[in-house]
């Protein structure tokens, strides 16, 4: 048994309202740069829908993830290592920019500098790739809220698999939201397809990162990832991906997408797993057994033997402690309501989902039944508006009984808790019907409904004795901040060259500048300047113009000195 810790996330889809706050804050934090305009480390898809990039789940087409060979051995769907290297000059199945979308901006300047005319000037869209006017035909969220249905949604690969049709009648349509980030897989196929070995999994927390100094832009990872969550920065020629906000997680605070989630639907925690059994679990012959296989490598952090093995593996006591309190461990293993996204890709994804139940209650209530009555819910789950088959294709490789089991638990929780809320005696038979106890249901209800910040995010900080690392990961020389002696701006070979600016160093200098100035936006000599509102217009008092270099000696080192000008013309210090 080789114990490793893995950071993971669970999202409760019942709570997602599709507001895209996670996507926007993530974009602002990580991909608001040139070269990754089209990149959304976090995106929220409307399902059924084509997703982003379009139809990425069709692995017959995109060839992401792993597959079992005829000999039962696990291999990448793109073929052998030799085959990948032979096709490296032109990757056969890499998505093009049109499969994502062509990023654009608007000609905003026209709005202010257009000549006087009869019609209001219009800001026309301009491509951010060519800077030419363009027609917007697609975006990361073109089919948001079933926009363009039924034509667009019929191309959803999951829908095609279950051969269901979106009903054309408005009353019969269904949809739900699926927020997606990088899965930080236990068996990442992006890392396996990287020829340079630039994509790696961190030993400490399992976060999958791209070493920007080692990436050579072979773009095999883009094909290798079945979730299409590795992106190609077309300006720097390097792969980029979701970082699980490692600078935040390292100091114990949640990712930006979780922090800003309006519905509070995300849970972050760590699990302990047995690294020796990953390959065996990922090679499980039957797709539908992969869920249980992945569950089986997750270790019980309360088991003394596991704790001892974890300590031997160098996992510190507070990490083990966090693993014991981990909300994702509870949701995955204890309550068994969270399911992995597309386990059949065999990458052992570590962002799990609680499938949506909501419409069933409303639907039942509308038909005049008691929507929260346990018997009614259990009976109705299979005739849900969202077909169970659809959810099963997403979360259970098509195993509908698994999804039904989870939805029954969620329904049971509603029915059981309603009795308690109404002051009625608890009906334990509801709990036993789904294989739980009343206490389990109450615990699950607490975690799903009222858990506060520190219960939803149990993130152990990395260690104090690892001191300076808390700030950031290996990002280069500390003198490489902007205008620093290391380098400023781009390197000599254009924008794609030179080192990257360390986040913490830049922030450190900004912070120290702000802390040592007198006001929020003042140069050091501001106190000596003439306030023009008080200036009577006669002559040129001292301080009207910035001093030349040799004047500084006169004013003394602190910049105040003998007091330039009279108090009436000097702005007082705040």
């Amino acid at each position, binding site marked *: 048994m080789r114990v490793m810790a893995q950071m993971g996330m669970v999202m409760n889809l019942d709570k997602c309202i599709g507001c895209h706050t996670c996507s926007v804050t993530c974009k602002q934090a990580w991909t608001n740069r040139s070269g990754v305009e089209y990149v959304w480390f976090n995106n929220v898809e409307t399902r059924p829908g084509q997703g982003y990039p379009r139809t990425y789940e069709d692995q017959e087409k995109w060839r992401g993830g792993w597959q079992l060979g005829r000999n039962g051995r696990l291999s990448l769907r793109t073929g052998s290592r030799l085959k990948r290297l032979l096709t490296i000059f*032109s*990757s056969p199945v890499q998505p093009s920019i049109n499969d994502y979308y062509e990023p654009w901006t608007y000609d905003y300047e026209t709005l202010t500098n257009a000549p006087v005319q009869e019609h209001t000037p219009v800001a026309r869209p301009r491509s951010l790739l060519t800077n030419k006017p363009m027609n917007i035909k697609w975006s990361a969220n073109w089919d948001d809220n079933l926009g363009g249905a039924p034509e667009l949604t019929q191309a959803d690969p999951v829908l095609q698999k279950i051969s269901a049709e979106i009903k054309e009648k408005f009353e019969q349509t269904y949809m739900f939201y699926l927020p997606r980030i990088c899965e930080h897989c236990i*068996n990442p196929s992006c890392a*396996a397809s990287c020829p340079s070995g630039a994509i*790696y999994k961190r030993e400490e927390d399992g976060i999958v990162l791209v070493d920007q100094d080692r990436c050579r832009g*072979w773009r095999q990872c883009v094909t290798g990832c079945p979730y299409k969550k590795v992106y190609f920065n077309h300006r720097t020629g390097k792969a980029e991906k979701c970082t699980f906000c490692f600078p935040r997680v390292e100091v114990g605070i949640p990712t930006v997408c979780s922090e800003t989630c309006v519905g509070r639907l995300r849970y972050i925690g760590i699990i302990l797993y047995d690294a020796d059994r990953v390959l065996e679990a990922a090679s499980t012959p039957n797709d539908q057994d992969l869920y249980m296989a992945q569950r089986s490598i997750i270790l019980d952090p309360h088991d003394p033997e596991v704790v001892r093995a974890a300590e031997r593996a160098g996992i510190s006591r507070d990490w083990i402690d966090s693993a014991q309190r981990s909300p994702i461990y509870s949701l995955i293993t204890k309550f068994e309501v969270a399911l992995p996204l597309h386990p059949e890709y065999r990458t052992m994804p570590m962002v799990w989902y609680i499938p949506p139940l909501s419409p069933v209650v409303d639907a039942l209530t509308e038909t005049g039944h008691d929507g929260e009555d346990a018997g009614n819910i259990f009976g109705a789950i299979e005739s849900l508006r969202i077909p169970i088959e659809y959810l099963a294709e997403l979360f259970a490789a098509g195993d509908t009984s698994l999804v039904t089991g989870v939805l029954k638990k969620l329904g049971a929780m509603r029915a059981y808790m309603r009795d308690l809320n109404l002051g009625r005696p608890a009906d334990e038979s509801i709990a036993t019907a789904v294989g739980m106890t009343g206490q389990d249901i109450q615990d699950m209800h607490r975690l799903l409904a009222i858990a506060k910040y520190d219960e939803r995010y149990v993130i152990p900080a990395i260690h104090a004795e690892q001191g300076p690392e808390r700030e950031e990961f290996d990002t280069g020389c500390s003198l490489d901040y902007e205008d620093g002696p290391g380098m400023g701006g781009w390197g000599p070979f254009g924008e794609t060259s030179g*080192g990257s600016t360390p986040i913490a160093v830049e922030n450190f200098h900004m912070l120290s500048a702000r802390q040592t100035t007198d006001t929020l936006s003042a140069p050091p000599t501001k106190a000596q300047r003439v306030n023009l509102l008080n200036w009577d217009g006669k002559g040129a008092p001292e301080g009207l113009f910035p001093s030349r270099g040799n004047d500084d000696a006169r004013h003394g080192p602190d910049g105040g000195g003998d007091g330039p000008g009279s108090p009436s013309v000097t702005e007082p210090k705040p």
Partner: protein
Amino acid sequence: MNALDIVLWVIVPYISLAIFVVGHYWRYKYDKFGWTTRSSQLYESRLLRWGSPLFHFGILFVLIGHVMGLGIPKSWTEAVGLSETAYHAMAIGVGAIAGFGTLVGLGILLYRRRTTGPVFSATTKNDKFMYLVLTMTILFGLSNTVLGVVGHGGVDYRDTVSPWFRSIFYFNPQPELMAAAGPGFQLHALSALLLFAIWPFTRLVHVFSAPLGYFTRPYIVYRSRDRQLGNRATPRGWDRVGGPRR
């Protein structure tokens, strides 16, 4: 042999090769982040699918041809019984196929680069200059091959260019050999020397990251965060207790 010959066939080659070697070392030390293929496949892949493999496989064969032609002395091939005519038939045959493959590939790639909007706007001045020198070198080289097929009355490069090239590495340069090689080979050599001199400063550096290590490494790479404290190497005198001695 005059002063110009010494400049062109002794001084320029050494300068060029020195820039090539030191430049790569410096670029790797200084600019690992900029060391990439700068692929433009995201923008366009229909033309790339044909052009890029044609060019790259073509130029790999051209490289093998050059290693053989420049590196293996004439006496060796004759010692194993390969006649002059047979050698040239083989060299020119394979060379012409590989060369034309390279040229057609390059033509497709340049056409694509010029006509595909996003690809063209991602092309830097550095790229344009590099393409110019590269195309020139390939054209001169290929025309030598073609002239070799058509005329074959000129000079044998294995008596002139190859010994001169090897003499550079013996540090016993023989410029008089190259001076006698004729303008076709001279132009090809000069533009190649220019190409070597700009090589470390262009996207051509990606040649040296051919990912051969991929065959031997395990699929999943694990890396620890705490091999190094902070974001730069530990300075001397600040090693951790029990750390490795340096």
